[in-house]
């Protein structure tokens, strides 16, 4: 049987509860337990081999580029954790069946829980660093889901978010750490990494990698100063707390420390960072636990404290300490899980977790009370229970280190102090809940829980006893092989027995017990002392910090993106300016070698006209009509410039476009506000003038530098092949319809789509129609001056003829489909101006949308026509024919293509016009009405 099934079964098991929910709650629980149980069975099957000291592993390739493999590892350490995860997991499934109320979705809960279980299995069994990280993150996610299970509670949401934030941050740090380790070692394979301890410790990046990895571990294991999320996670249902926050997830950090112990430990940095963090956490947790009135709060801080203890043990960096750490992992899991479950039962059956209300429950639930008291005793470290054994080992190990030099004595003293508090809060858990008078104001009368709900607690408490009394027999083998995995081979000699004789550790235990009882007895003074300090709610602080962060982000974001086009445009231009400045400074000689053309009067005049008009447009942009007129002059001069420098086609196009644009602008002006206020402050104007001048200067300079240099271009090809290959002597037109016909196809598509877009814009437009012009004068009432109408009518055929002329000759002489289309459009626009939209619409019922579409379609199909002859898209075809009497003439596919262009242009222009025409109402005063 493949080892993978150990991981795969719980993964698949995630779906089981969702599918089995319909069969009832008990069935759901049983079905859910099935696959994890099977998985546990597989683990047990593999156990003997592992206990013999074998390391089982299995690998599949997954994403080699990433270094990610699906690789499973089963050694002693993995075995220990797998037993905990799967074993306690099964108990939790049973417990949760009774814990959850009928309103709670059991399927959802179990799905999350099994997902978490699978993730944990994945973490511990990963033999690939990335795989480990993947499952590590999954534990964060599934724990988020579990904490947030009662998502209608604000507490739960906040607690879950906080846990996710902290563990998420840790996860990312861990990723960085793992990537660094892999980078140093050169492999993501855990086996390789574990064999490269010296390489790692000597690498310059070792401290960074270590710290990053520790960040991952500490956040997960709630080590100081990242401990604050764990108490907030208590908003989760108690089974979750019992499982995640005592037995498994928080141990993932410990697992990580243990896993990398062979390669990362053994340095001063390790001791200082791990050991001192553990010590601080141990003390802090134990101390705070005492003051928590909430049962689960007490347990949460106690958990923090115990995790600190294990961390400290690993930090002590001795082999025995490591063994003790592993032992305490087991012990803590057993007693803390049972305590959480007991607390859950109390909460469930009495309706409260407040120890100030809970009193004397012994009378109501003696069975549960017994179990809880045994577990609590174990937590306190009472002999005959497993907690005692590992604590004893811990005390012993604190005595055996000298890293802190002359301050080394402090560690055992502080450890004992933590022991004192542990005994105190354990005593409180027992005395304050089960004795201490009668309950106060409980929502329900407490009673024993359902039979099966107690079974998990019983199992765990029995384990506490068994481990405590027969440690060697019960866990000796497991511990030995786990320690071997952690220590990388040699296991130190140790003795797992209850009685080691009278020694210093025993004394420390006695001191702790006596001190603990004393502290608890005098708790009133201590509580009073503690009450002086303001209570800080971690959740509130965290939320506040988050709010502040969001607020800060928002104001930063809003300050940057203030919704002003002027600023965006300015930044765009500034960016272009900065980018252009650098290469221009490299440009030593502005002028090139090419001989310049002479200048004559016409050119100077044209330049003068162009510049003056452009400046006038700029200066008088608020006098809209004048600006429009000067803009037209600019357009006119530009087209004449094209003509002068040998580009008649361009001149024609520019002219036609110019007029259509002007008409469009006139149409727009009618609806735009008639006055443009002067609102730019002088400083803004100067700034804009500055950037405009600089950028304009740059563009001019570049232009000059370019056109004074000689050019060798691909154009000779076009001149050489235009006639022979394209069948036309107007090379520009042949380029447009043949050599680069694909550009033209795109271009007419743009035109057509623009018209469609404009149609979309206009269809929903509701505009106010000004009743008079800028000076407030009412509009003239003569809608369609008669002379204009008559002349326009007679001009139309002429204009159409001209456009046909321009169309037909385009291939050989200046002209072409586009210009012809624009001329046709202008001629028709002239009809609109002379007669109005309604008049035209009534007489010329053309669907312009169809015209556009068929235009582009004709061009496209012309291009596809060449497929029939086995040529690529847009391959042209032309031939000369001779008919008697008529003479020689040419037919070319380019003509058809150009026809498409023509139709598109006409359709697009007129669609825009016709839709604009629908904007005005017919209820404006006219001459006819006034008569």
């Amino acid at each position: 049987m493949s080892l993978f099934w150990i991981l795969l079964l719980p993964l698949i098991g995630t779906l089981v509860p969702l599918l089995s929910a319909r069969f009832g709650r008990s069935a759901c629980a049983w079905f859910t337990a099935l696959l994890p149980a099977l998985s546990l069975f597989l683990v047990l099957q593999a156990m003997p081999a592992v206990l013999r000291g074998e390391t089982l592993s299995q690998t599949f390739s997954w994403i080699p580029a990433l270094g990610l493999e699906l690789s499973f590892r089963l050694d002693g350490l993995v075995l220990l954790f797998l037993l905990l995860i799967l074993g306690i997991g099964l108990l939790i499934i049973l417990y949760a069946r009774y814990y959850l109320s009928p309103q709670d979705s059991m399927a959802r809960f179990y799905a999350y829980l099994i997902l978490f279980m699978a993730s944990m299995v994945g973490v511990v069994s990963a033999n690939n660093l990335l795989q480990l990280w993947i499952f590590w993150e999954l534990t964060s996610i599934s724990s988020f889901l579990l904490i947030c299970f009662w998502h209608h509670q604000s507490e739960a949401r906040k607690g879950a978010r906080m846990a996710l934030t902290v563990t998420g941050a840790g996860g990312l740090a861990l990723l960085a750490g793992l990537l660094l380790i892999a980078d140093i070692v050169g492999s993501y394979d855990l086996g390789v990494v574990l064999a490269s301890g010296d390489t790692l410790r000597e690498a310059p990046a070792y401290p960074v990698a270590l710290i990053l990895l520790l960040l991952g571990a500490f956040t997960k294991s709630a080590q100081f100063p990242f401990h604050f999320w764990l108490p907030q996670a208590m908003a989760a249902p108690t089974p979750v707390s019992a499982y995640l926050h005592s037995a498994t997830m928080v141990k993932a950090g410990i697992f990580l420390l243990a896993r990398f112990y062979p390669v990362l430990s053994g340095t001063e940095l390790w001791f200082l960072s791990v050991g001192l963090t553990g010590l601080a956490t141990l003390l802090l947790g134990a101390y705070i636990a005492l003051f928590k009135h909430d049962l689960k709060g007490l347990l949460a801080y106690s958990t923090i404290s115990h995790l600190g203890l294990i961390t400290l043990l690993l930090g002590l960096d001795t082999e025995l300490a490591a063994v003790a750490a592993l032992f305490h992992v087991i012990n803590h899991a057993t007693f803390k899980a049972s305590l959480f479950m007991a607390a859950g039962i109390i909460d469930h059956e009495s309706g409260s977790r407040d120890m100030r209300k809970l009193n004397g429950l012994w009378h109501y639930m003696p069975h549960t009370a017994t179990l809880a008291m045994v577990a609590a005793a174990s937590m306190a470290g009472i002999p005959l229970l497993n907690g005692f054994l590992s604590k004893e080992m811990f005390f012993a190990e604190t005595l055996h280190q000298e890293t802190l030099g002359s301050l080394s004595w402090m560690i055992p003293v502080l450890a004992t102090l933590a022991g004192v508090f542990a005994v105190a809060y354990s005593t409180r858990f027992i005395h304050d809940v089960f004795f201490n008078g009668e309950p106060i104001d409980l929502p329900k009368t407490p009673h024993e829980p359902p039979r099966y709900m107690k079974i998990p607690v019983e199992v765990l408490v029995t384990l506490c006893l068994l481990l405590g009394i027969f440690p060697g027999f019960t866990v000796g083998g497991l511990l030995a092989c786990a320690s071997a995995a952690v220590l990388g081979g040699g296991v130190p000699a140790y003795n797992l027995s209850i009685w080691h004789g009278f020694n210093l550790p025993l004394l420390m235990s006695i001191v702790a017990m006596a001190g603990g009882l004393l502290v608890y007895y005098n708790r009133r003074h201590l509580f009073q002392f503690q009450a002086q300090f303001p209570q800080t709610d971690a959740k509130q602080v965290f939320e506040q910090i988050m709010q502040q962060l969001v607020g800060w982000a928002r104001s930063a974001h809003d300050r940057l993106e203030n919704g002003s086009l002027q600023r965006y445009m300015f930044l765009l231009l500034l960016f272009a300016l900065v980018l252009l400045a650098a290469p221009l400074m490299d440009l030593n000689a502005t002028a090139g070698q090419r001989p310049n053309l002479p200048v004559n009067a016409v050119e100077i005049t044209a330049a003068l006209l162009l510049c003056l008009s452009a400046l006038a447009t700029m200066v008088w942009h608020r006098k809209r009509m004048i600006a429009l007129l000067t803009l037209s002059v600019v357009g006119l001069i530009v087209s004449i410039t094209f003509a002068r420098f040998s580009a008649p086609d361009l001149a024609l196009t520019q002219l036609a476009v110019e007029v259509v644009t002007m008409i469009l602008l006139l149409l727009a002006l009618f609806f735009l506000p008639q006055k443009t206020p002067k609102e730019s402050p002088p400083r803004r104007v100067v700034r804009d003038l500055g950037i405009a001048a600089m950028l304009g200067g740059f563009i001019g300079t570049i232009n000059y530098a370019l056109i004074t240099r000689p050019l060798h271009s691909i154009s000779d090809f076009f001149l050489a092949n235009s006639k022979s290959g394209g069948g036309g002597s107007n090379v520009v037109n042949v380029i447009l319809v043949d050599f680069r016909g694909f550009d033209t196809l795109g271009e007419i598509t743009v035109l057509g789509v623009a018209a469609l877009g404009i149609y979309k814009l206009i269809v929903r437009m509701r505009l106010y129609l000004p009743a008079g012009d800028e000076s407030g004068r009412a509009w003239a009432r003569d809608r369609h001056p008669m002379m204009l109408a008559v002349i326009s009518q007679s001009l139309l055929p002429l204009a159409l003829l001209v456009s046909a002329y321009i169309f037909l000759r385009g291939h050989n002489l200046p002209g072409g489909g586009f210009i012809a289309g624009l001329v046709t459009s202008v001629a028709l626009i002239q009809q609109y101006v002379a007669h109005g939209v309604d008049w035209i619409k009534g007489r010329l019922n053309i669907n312009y949308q169809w015209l556009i579409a068929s235009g582009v379609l004709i061009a496209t199909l012309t291009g596809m026509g060449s497929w029939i002859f086995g040529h690529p898209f847009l391959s042209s075809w032309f031939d000369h024919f001779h008919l008697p009497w008529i003479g020689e003439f040419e037919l070319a596919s380019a003509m058809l293509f150009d026809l498409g262009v023509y139709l598109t242009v006409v359709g697009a222009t007129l669609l825009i016009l016709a839709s604009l025409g629908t904007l005005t109402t017919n209820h404006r005063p006219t001459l006819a009405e006034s008569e």
Partner: protein
Amino acid sequence: MNVWLEVVVSILLLIGGFFVLVGSIGLARLPDFYTRLHSPTKATTLGMGAILIASMILMSHEQGVLSLHELLITLFLLITAPVTAHMLAKTALHQEAHPLERTRSLQLLPSAREQQPPAGADSHD
């Protein structure tokens, strides 16, 4: 090139250039809009005509075929110039452009603006 041809073309060009210039001088010089309206409308027609005829003659000679298409431009200008002038005058009337003080029959302006018969002219017909 034939000298006479050159002379004819040159003269036509000069005439054209002159009238075009006169049109623009008038546009710049005349005192009010209504008077300015006259000069380009007319001067340019003749000016353009002359230049176009010069082009016709020269091109016919150059290409060896009768080149008459310049006539079309003349035709266009002759058809459109009056309409442009009419529209501009109409606009000026509507916008109440200030005529020269000494213009005669200024009393006609209000009725012209309203496109009504002149006041007191009902007896006509």
